[in-house]
């Protein structure tokens, strides 16, 4: 099976060439890496390369998507196998979030300011969500029509959970 890996958006082929316990030889793009890779605790990695030490903390927030914490940065890494290439192609370019409103963090719905079928103008506040003593207003950036309201006031919500769905712009 052939793999590619995407880091912060850039994609390269990747392949394990050889493996002897923790000593691993990997080809990524045109370069070859000989590494000594040790998983100290689940997701906590120590790597030695030519004597230099590297420490990483991994979080697989989806089976093939990782946040790699290097202290200074969090790298976004995605593993792409034939299956994900296939499904990416099928979804095509129409994979944006513009058809619903969601929040990046868990919280509680304070106010829902729209009803189903309502027309809203660019800049209108749709929902108010509270998390950690802070209230945030979520607005639309273009004129839209509300198709469905999925939450009630007072409801606890997860991050990225759709709250209000709009009619398609097409």
């Amino acid at each position: 099976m052939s793999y590619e890996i995407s880091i912060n958006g850039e994609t390269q082929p990747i392949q394990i060439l050889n493996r002897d316990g923790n000593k691993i030889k990997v080809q990524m793009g045109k370069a070859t890496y000989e590494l000594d890779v040790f998983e100290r605790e689940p997701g906590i990695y120590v790597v030695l390369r030519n004597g230099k030490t590297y420490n990483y903390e991994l979080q697989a927030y989806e089976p093939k998507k990782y946040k790699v914490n290097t202290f200074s940065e969090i790298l976004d890494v995605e593993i792409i196998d034939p299956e994900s290439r296939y499904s990416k192609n099928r979804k095509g370019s129409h994979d944006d979030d513009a058809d619903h409103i969601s929040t990046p963090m868990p919280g509680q719905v304070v106010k829902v300011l729209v009803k189903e079928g309502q027309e809203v103008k660019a800049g209108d506040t749709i929902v108010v969500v509270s998390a950690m003593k802070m209230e945030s207003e979520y607005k639309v950036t273009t004129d839209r029509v509300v198709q469905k309201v999925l939450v009630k006031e007072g409801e606890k919500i997860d991050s990225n959970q759709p709250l209000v769905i709009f009619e398609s712009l097409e």
Partner: protein
Amino acid sequence: MIKKILIANRGEIAIRVMNTCREMGIQTVAVYSEADYSSLHVSYADEAYCIGPAPSAESYLNIEKIIEVAKKTGADAIHPGYGFLSENAKFSQRCKDENIIFIGPAPYAIDTMGDKITARKTMMDAGVPVVPGTKEPITDLDDAVKVIKEIGLPVMVKASAGGGGKGMRLVEKEEDIISSVKAAKSEALSAFGNDAVYVEKYISSPHHIEFQVLADNHGNCVHLFERECSVQRRHQKVVEETPSPIMTEEVRKEMGKHAVAAAQAVNYSGAGTIEFITDDNLNYYFLEMNTRLQVEHPITEEVVGLDLVKEQIKIANGEKLSFKQEDLGQRGHAIEVRIYAEDPDNNFMPNPGKIEHIQFPLGPGIRNDTYVYNGFEIPIYYDPMISKLVVWGANRSDAIQRMKRALKVFKINGVKTSIPFLYQIMEVESFVKGRYTTHFIQNNEQELKMRADCNMECAEIGTIVAFLDYMNKREAKLSSINEESASSKWKESGRKFRFLI
């Protein structure tokens, strides 16, 4: 003697108070909201009782319920921590009525310091400097000019009916006084139909410097020196240190005396903090008093060598302070940073979630005041503070180096935190030099966005490690499936089955 204390709080401060209780041999009672069932303060206490649903109003602010638990458990005293009921005069009074010791000041002190106008007046009477300004609105131009000259430039002229910046003028030069007052008055008139204005001293390079005080019930009051809290974001303290890098011994003594006078003016009892706004020339003015333990109290403990919670409890017990002002001194330098679950690269948006893994910095000169653990889910209902990291060093530069070391090895996985931002603060020149004001964060926005470099090699190896992790998991899954299909053969033969049902 206090034998059992109910801690009417949560999070790190509940743990902090319980630590001292344990050291004093005092029993502890925790209260918790439904959202805090899995919080560490529950298991850390000798007893723990649920007092209601997640919203604070229904739990941590629920006076009836908390008093009920205190009475049921026979707690002699209640420690309110900071926030929640800590500056609630009614609660202080209610404890008194119920014959429970409130570990904090009497209602009178809370009330007086809680009202800005009363506090200002009380301080003026006590000879404590306040920000100079008019007490009554002024309509007459000449009066305004006279007042401005008395106060001294720069001043802020504000519409007395105002708000939102309308009718507001900063006056910095003498020749601008008349035109600015006129402009402010006419703007005020057209905006609010009222041309009365206030005049207030404008402090252009403000420092937030506060003094810790301790007062017993026998008339003794001392200060425990200053804390410099000018690194703020949206009026929230981010980094605190002591001593203040701009303080002089002379001003310290004088400010300390005023801090003690301020506390004595309200007959204060317990631990409290007098906040001053201070300019570059160390002119200082009373801002407000916090009638409770502060979040940043640990840096004072590190440098002065006292346990403030212990002193609070001893005072509440009716004991006299066991030291005098001249017995107290500062040794070395301490810095505290507040570590929040937030995304510093995305406008400090709160980032609650599950702490997948946490590894605290350890070793010399490091103190962690915290309440989280591996697997803890930070509730969305409360303050997103994860931990207070405190370092002590022999001097300021040692303390900064130590803080950088600590932040570098402080690993928190699962939520984004302010750690990289805090690290960057330690790198900004004006912080390193100790020349910063409350405008520090906005003045250094660009520099604070920079991040210690993860070089090309580091990023590439990180990418490879993610790939290896994925492949390892995939293999593990495959072999577990093979194993299970082997085990299902056992199942069919009926042998293993017997042990599993």
